[in-house]
């Protein structure tokens, strides 16, 4: 079965080339300077890579209909996570905040009322991501929402390589021959949600659904995944998507 996702790997974009070409074409100065920083050499060992965990809380799952309500970013390396370097913003969604999402994120209407628009944090956010490899749990969400939010405000989208701790977990617990065998035998699939994934590595439980806590939780999870299933020499190209 392995040939299938090896084949998939060949179709993934060559990130350094993609970023370089975007740097050439993008007019918007903030995006241009982001792209100009480029990304890591694909051969960089993960143990030496500057990383940044990122987590969004959103009003829903559809990037075209829903908005980001909070952003947490946590720069780190496999050697150390420094929570003091983390940043967190509560944002004002352009569309209405539903009561369900209030209950889910514990972010209240009042908090959101005085919060800035995403536009106001772009100047702080992009430099924190530039030159670092972004780590998220479930890349579809962060990638889509970041792309949409930037596109709406700067007129052009933003794509970058990301390590997705959820898909790393899926590779191990869902796509391995053992996981397939278990599923064939009718056993339930291992949960690859952030909290359940962390439990497999005996990481402590955190109060969930806070963008900064979740980005810290994601950073710790990656440290554990690398030790368990890879090593510090693994090139970033084997991990990013």
């Amino acid at each position, binding site marked *: 079965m392995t040939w299938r996702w090896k084949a998939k790997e060949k179709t993934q974009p060559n990130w350094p080339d993609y970023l370089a070409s975007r740097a050439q074409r993008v007019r918007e100065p903030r995006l241009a300077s982001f792209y100009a920083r480029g990304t890591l050499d694909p051969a960089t060992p993960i143990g030496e890579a500057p990383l940044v965990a990122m987590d969004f809380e959103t009003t829903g799952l559809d990037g075209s209909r829903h908005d980001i309500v909070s952003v947490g970013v946590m720069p780190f390396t496999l*050697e*150390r*996570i*420094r*929570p*003091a370097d*983390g940043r*967190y913003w509560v944002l004002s969604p352009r569309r209405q905040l539903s009561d369900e999402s209030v209950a889910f994120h514990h972010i209240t209407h009042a908090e959101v009322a005085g919060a800035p628009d995403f536009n106001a944090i772009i100047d702080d956010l992009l430099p924190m991501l530039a030159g670092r490899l972004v780590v998220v749990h479930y890349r579809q969400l962060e990638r889509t929402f970041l792309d949409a939010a930037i596109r709406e405000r700067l007129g052009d989208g933003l794509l970058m390589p990301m390590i997705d701790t959820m898909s790393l977990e899926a590779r191990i617990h869902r796509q391995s021959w053992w996981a397939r065998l278990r599923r064939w035998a009718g056993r339930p699939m291992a949960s690859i949600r952030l909290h359940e994934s962390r439990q497999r*590595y*005996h*990481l*402590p439980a*955190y*109060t969930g659904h*806070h963008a*900064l*806590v979740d980005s*810290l939780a994601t*950073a*710790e999870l990656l*440290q*554990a995944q690398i*030790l*368990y299933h890879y090593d510090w020499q693994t090139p970033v190209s084997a991990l990013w998507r």
Partner: protein
Amino acid sequence: MNVEQLDIRGHMAQFAPFDNLPDELLDRIAGEVEIRYFQAGTELLVKDQPIDSLWYIRSGAVEMYQRSGRLFNRLSEGDIFGYSDLLRSNRRVRYPVSAIEDTLIYFIPGDVFETVCEEDDDFAEFVETGGQRLKVTVEQQRDDSGLMTTRVRKLINRQPQMVEATTTLQQAAQQMRDANATCVLVIDVTETQSAYTFTGPDGRHWKLNGILTDRDFCTRVLAEGKSPQTPVGDVMSRRLIVTQSDESVYEAMLSMLRNQVHHLPVLYRRQPVGVLHLSDIVRHETHSSLFLVNNVFVQNSPEQLAKLAPEVRTGFARMVADGANSEMVCRALATIGRAFTQRLLELAESELGPAPVPYCFMVLGSMAREEPTINADQDNALVLDDDYDPDLHGEYFEALASFVCDGLDACGYPYCKGDVMATNARWRQPLHVWKRYFTEWMEEPNGERLLHSSIFFDLAPVHGEAPMVESLQDLVAELAPQRPIFLAALARNAKSRTPPLGFFRKFVMEHDGEHRKSINLKRRGTAPLTDLVRVHALACGSKAQNTFTRLDDIAETKLLADGVTERLRYAFEFMSMVRIRHQAEAVEQGIEPDNSVDPENIGSRERHNLKDAFEAISNAQKFLSFRYIMPTRQGSSKTEPDRLGSPQGSASHRVSR
């Protein structure tokens, strides 16, 4: 502060030494923490590697090893390590550390660690090892005792006598006489409010203006020749020293001493609620135990005495709750135990008639050391005059012994399971036989004799001819220092019960890494300590029986290295206190007190202190082998070390010491 730092802070705030840090320092630490995950089996710190942070275990567990490969400690969630290395000048790792589970570490940078040490004495004392921590804790406990924590209002049991300034001296004196009071407070209606005004039941503002005491009636009234019709306001003392009802008794006492007064009006929101007299404090301090002792001596039968047994338990629990230290609690229990014994002997003598020959009733073991706890059983014996004739006097003393031992059992001092009681004919002997026993035990020790030595060499007279027992104490003090074989054998026995290494989560951790569910604090803590102190005390010819007093005697001889006796003293005090508190809790819950403590009920701070105490005992036990070496004597099989065996084991547990 970010929310994830709040999580870090919240976690740390549960564990020593962070639990006592001021908010501002805790914030600073939480704000500087760095995080890293380690897989089970990873070596975290290698010997001699430089170290620049304090390591805090957020989740998981680690092990530390000594150079010899011996397990030094096992730590889990909320524990810290690396601090002793950080405090060393070269900042290098002494004991290697490995993760035994997947472990998430919070690093506290070395400079932050230093700052916190500088700014917070408690934190600094906690991380400075070498018995210091235990000392601090014990001294804090001492400071916290009784006077410091008891509030003044607890000692106030009646309303103050109050009069207006216009009241005549005679009326005031009559009021004092009728209320059996030693002073009156002088109050008057006032318009303006001040620190002394309060609202009376009539809704008017009243002001406390002065005080007139029975002493004032002597110095200010009679000596000055004032008429009984003089208004109180003319002679009262206007210099008012007051205290607040929530003030500590200790502060109130200091205030009395500082101001040379014996009466302190006590205020609650400016309203006088009572008057504290110096004698109230004295009574409070001595109340619990002396009151009971007094009661013991007025009972006229063993049955009546037995009815006091529950009071002993409640009195014990109250003393512990009031913050008494182990020495105070144990001495009180010893005094009470001796009172019961004495009273039973008096009752026995009035029933059986006066003793035909002089005798002395002695107590042994913990009662003789004045260290009994609430669940102590009885250990006693009879020393009879050398004119004792079994045919003539045997029956009398047998009856006397039965009367007392049965009575003690009924009063809550159960029969000794090892039969160390005056009812045992072997332990009801004339003085010369006792001297022969003691001499034999020291000259030709064997398993049984060593066991006897460790019980009978803690001895004290309770009733009768005290000099008889004192002569036995003299004999032991004189012979023991010159009996190296005896001392070496006793030293060996003193090592048969060892303390555990410490605690790990819900378990007691042994030196081989094994886990146990509970710890017998007597068998694994206080008893090994009293055993080893006894060896040193005998070696230096001390006649003291009490472990603390013995440690004083030992300290004077330079037999132990500097600071060792002090460490043992703190270790003993701390372990005794944990044991006593455990028993007091049992008494309060109405369950039978024992010595077995569940690690789940031991707090984060206590764990660290107990580990230090265990370590102090462990080191002292090791020192015994160096200090008391078995002399090699060929041809004498009796004293060959291997033949002495270990008499402890099951036998020792049956005999309470």
